[in-house]
């Protein structure tokens, strides 16, 4: 069998394995209601993972996406609720700020890790200023969107597929997606062909900001109240999701569908563990174990590849 194909299929296989295991341990999940409930919180994670993926595409890493999602949820629960125009304006400014960070990272050739690490404090600080302790309220329309009931297929699944396909078309199929990925593969080649790396980075960072906003809003729609710390772990989740989905840190090799599937796998793996009723001491460790097991699958495939 074609190794490359197998590697691309791997995230989907992992998802299937985890899903089946979950069904076996807890048959009740094998229903519209069950899937809906179990996967709801995967939607904002998937969106954050896509945001991270845009940054990874251009060989950078975003350590601020978690606090950023938290900030969006705070803005959504306050400004956006009280004054929609102002709220949308604020979110637009945030996306522009992401673009500015991209420009800064490129122009001064800075390590993105530190810049976004600093940025994570900035986002958290603004969020704490806006909402010193959790609260606020989600706009009604947001709650409505996130609790929409679609016949036959649960909403989270539809949302995941739509996100994956749209981003896949844009990044993997379109002619501008090629430029974006090329910027990660060999930036020099791109500048030599007359493309502006600056512009590419700004656009990719702004896309990340945009998907970060979507993630924050969808999360707000689920939690119904804002919280600065609501998504602190999204930073690591989103990175893990991109890698689980077959992406690589360097070289512009990413997969949008894989990233979405990676995010779903992570969310499901958490549920699976809860169903196993492990002793609380080891519940945290089991999360690590499951990450290792899923990624060990990859090792088998890549090992075969080396032997080629």
């Amino acid at each position, binding site marked *: 069998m074609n190794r490359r194909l197998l590697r691309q299929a791997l995230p989907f296989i992992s998802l299937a394995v985890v899903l089946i295991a979950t069904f076996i341990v807890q048959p009740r999940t094998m229903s519209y209601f069950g899937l809906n409930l179990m996967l709801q919180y995967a939607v904002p994670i998937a969106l954050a993972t896509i945001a991270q993926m845009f940054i990874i595409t251009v060989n950078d890493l975003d350590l601020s996406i978690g606090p950023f999602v938290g900030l969006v949820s705070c803005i959504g629960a306050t400004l956006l609720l009280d004054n929609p125009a102002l709220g949308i304006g604020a979110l637009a400014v945030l996306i522009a700020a992401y673009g500015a960070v991209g420009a*800064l990272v490129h122009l*001064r050739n800075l*390590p993105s890790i530190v810049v976004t*690490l*600093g940025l994570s404090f*900035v986002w*958290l600080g603004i969020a704490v200023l806006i909402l010193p302790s959790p609260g606020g309220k989600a706009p009604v329309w947001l709650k409505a969107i996130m609790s929409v009931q679609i016949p036959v297929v649960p909403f989270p699944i539809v949302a995941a597929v739509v996100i994956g396909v749209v981003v896949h078309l844009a990044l993997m199929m379109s002619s501008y997606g090629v430029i974006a990925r090329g910027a990660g593969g060999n930036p020099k080649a791109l500048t030599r062909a007359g493309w502006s790396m600056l512009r590419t980075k700004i656009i990719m960072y702004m896309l990340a900001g945009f998907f970060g906003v979507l993630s924050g809003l969808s999360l707000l729609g689920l939690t119904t109240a804002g919280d600065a710390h609501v998504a602190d772990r999204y930073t690591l989740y989103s*990175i*893990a999701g991109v890698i689980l989905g077959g992406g690589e840190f360097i070289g512009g090799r990413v997969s949008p569908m894989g990233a979405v599937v990676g995010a779903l796998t992570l969310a499901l793996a958490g549920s699976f563990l809860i169903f196993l009723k492990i002793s609380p001491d080891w519940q945290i460790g089991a999360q690590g174990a499951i990450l290792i097991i899923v*990624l060990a699958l990859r090792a088998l495939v890549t090992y075969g590849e080396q032997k080629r």
Partner: protein
Amino acid sequence: MNQSFAYLKKQPWVWSFAAALAVWLITIAYTEGQGATAILTAALSFATFTIIVGLGQMMVITTGPGNVDLSIPATITLSGVVAMKVMDEQTAMIIPGIVAALGAATLVGIFNYGLIRLLRIPPIIATLSSSFLILSTAISYGRGIRIKPPLPLSDFATARIFGVPLSAILVLVISIGLAVVLKRTVYGRSVLAVGQNMRAAWLAGMNVDRTRFATYVLSAFFSGICGIVLSGFSGGAALNMGEEFLLASIATVVIGGTSVAGGRANVPGIWGAALFMYLLVTMLNTFGASAGVRLILTGLMIIGVIVAAGGEEQR
């Protein structure tokens, strides 16, 4: 004069020291000179913990893009818990406790590299996953009980010589040793070479596997030392004692001028960066800034330092 200034400007660590100095000056200007040396002493004694784990993190980051040790916090906790539990407040058990704790830390390093090498898991994810397992081990072994360190250990951890913390002197010795290792040993050169180009390093006759293995073990080992001394310093081990070192270890390394793309390490920069990070928080606390403002300023200062220091050379 001008020449030495130009030389200094090119050293990546200068910026972190300059930033630390600036922050310190602003703080004592605000307090009108009150507590100037006391602040420095406090900074030194707390920064040593960040520095020691920063040194390990630096070695890992230097081995190439994507290499980073996220299991440092959990390893600190584990070694602290193991040390305190084995010592059980008895002076006679200090040595066995240290050996057990460092042994546990070393095992963590071996496990981490096993995941990276045998299972081919990217280091970020491998060390993240292992950190969960390590934390569970610490929880299940320590049961959340806080045991006090034996007196000699806490005396050692808090001792000062002419106002300089003993632990800072210890870490200074380790730092100098590591700087020599990087410049003048085959292992050090291998780390730098592997970080630039793993394949080329292999073809140039370096033992890539052994180098990476040793580096992950070294990082875990340094976390182990940190865990033991920190437990002695703060009166026992706690399950969350390592948490703050996750971001701090990465930030100090990179602000200190080590390249995140690998292949370039900088020992003095870690000192500057760790002092800067501590003094920054102190300054903002002294100003009485609210939590939000403090966070924002912290972030902006980190970005400011890295912007001033400039990035890697364009190539």
